[in-house]
């Protein structure tokens, strides 16, 4: 794969951005990345990936409810990072940044991952609530299936299990 900037050297930096479900790919070489002021990790500090990312953060689409520009004073109350700093360095300062910048993150995550909501592993202690919710969803699906299959004994057992879990959640 050749660099899309110079067309000569092999592309060594690959990046995908997704805008409104449409994928665009960057493929550039080290020399061109450097020319554009993006440093390469592992050489002398700096993160091209973050520079590229901040390029993505810069053009939040106008379709967003709050308009194009983040309010000047949008900042994380916890660590003090402002949204404009975040969009320059492409990194969060603390986990609360996710809370304070939340309204503006969906378009970013959509572009980087094509998704906005986590569906993977849940830590047992911190995420116990979510784990129960997911378990409930699974059990309800299986209950439907059993009823459909007319396996009523299994269905009854599932229903009891669901009630038990629901009790746990509401007592929290």
């Amino acid at each position: 794969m050749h660099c899309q900037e110079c067309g000569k050297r092999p592309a060594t930096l690959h990046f995908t951005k997704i805008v409104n479900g449409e994928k665009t790919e960057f493929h550039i070489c080290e020399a061109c990345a450097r020319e554009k002021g993006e440093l390469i990790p592992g050489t002398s500090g700096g993160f091209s990936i973050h520079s590229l990312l901040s390029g993505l953060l810069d053009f939040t689409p106008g379709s967003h409810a709050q308009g194009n520009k983040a309010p000047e004073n949008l900042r994380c109350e916890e660590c003090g990072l402002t949204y404009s700093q975040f969009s320059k360095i492409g990194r969060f300062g603390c986990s609360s940044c996710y809370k304070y910048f939340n309204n503006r993150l969906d378009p970013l995550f959509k572009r980087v991952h094509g998704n906005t909501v986590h569906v993977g592993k849940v830590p047992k202690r911190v995420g116990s609530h979510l784990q129960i919710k997911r378990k409930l969803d699974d059990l309800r699906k299986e209950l439907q299936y059993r009823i459909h299959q007319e396996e009523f004994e299994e269905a009854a057992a599932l229903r009891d299990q669901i009630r038990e879990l629901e009790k746990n959640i509401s007592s929290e």
Partner: protein
Amino acid sequence: MANRRFTEQPLSEWMRSGGKESEIVISSRVRIARNLLNRPFPMLATNQQSEDVLNQLESVLADERMQQFGQLSPVLLADLDELDKKVLVEKHLISPNLANESRSGAVFISEDESLSIMVNEEDHLRIQCLYPGLQVQEAWDKATSVDDIFEAHVDYAFDDHRGFLTSCPTNVGTGLRASVMMHLPALVLTQQINRILSAVSQVGLTVRGIYGEGSEATGNLFQISNQITLGQSESEIIENLYSVVMQIIEHEKSARERLLSESRLRMTDRVMRSYGILLYAAIMDSKEAAQRLSDVRLGVDLGLIDALSVQVLNELTVMTQPGFLQKKFQVSMSPGERDMYRAKLIREKLGK
């Protein structure tokens, strides 16, 4: 000093066995990123805060369930000189990013070097597992069980909606980066590689050169990894990567067969010439070394060269890197001198 063996021995213990599909897949790696609740990420942390994170995470090593992974030696980055750091990066035991990190950066390395746990990298905690051959699932299984042990002791920054919260938006969600290092000389020779690599990037995977982001794919080595960490479960990520890698393996195998059947003589000539050059050259730059070693590896895999083990080639791949060379000969070298020492080392290694 506990870290000495990590920097003096070129080949990690885990690299000695071949693993599945080891003719094409060099190694599998899984890394998961985690952060502690209510603490600034390392980028904004004070020295004291970083120190606290290190102490808290190090205390988890005492959990008896950690014993199943063997002795874990803590290595403080501040205790290492630049050369040692470079060697650890060349062996993939730490990231270049951690090597540059000044505040309370540390790594816990298992005896066989297949598990390394980085502290105060871009995120508070990064658990990394390395396996030979195609073993992404195995690497994930190990990483997630190490993760469970940490989670039993410390509160992670986790959000129902976004998942594991990471410093960089590209890691949020699962925090999982799974990657497979592949040797694909036949796809390069038959000029199918570009088509295949661009197909790979259509399905949410990225391809990089041997030493991580930004470095060139030298010696026909390509690292394939997932790009999406949010909205896909870990098992989806692992399965997706695995199935794509299996397809690439099939393409590489058939390209090798075609090369052998259609141009056996030319292939033999090519690999034997490279072997000859490695055996007798007096100057060898890193790019040429990588290319010649790739040819010879292909020759061994195809049965055109015998009496040479892939292990020696693995070893040379690590040893011919600048950091290791200087470590080995105990002199600091200009790039030109490096090329001379590199040639000398290769001659010595292959010459018996």
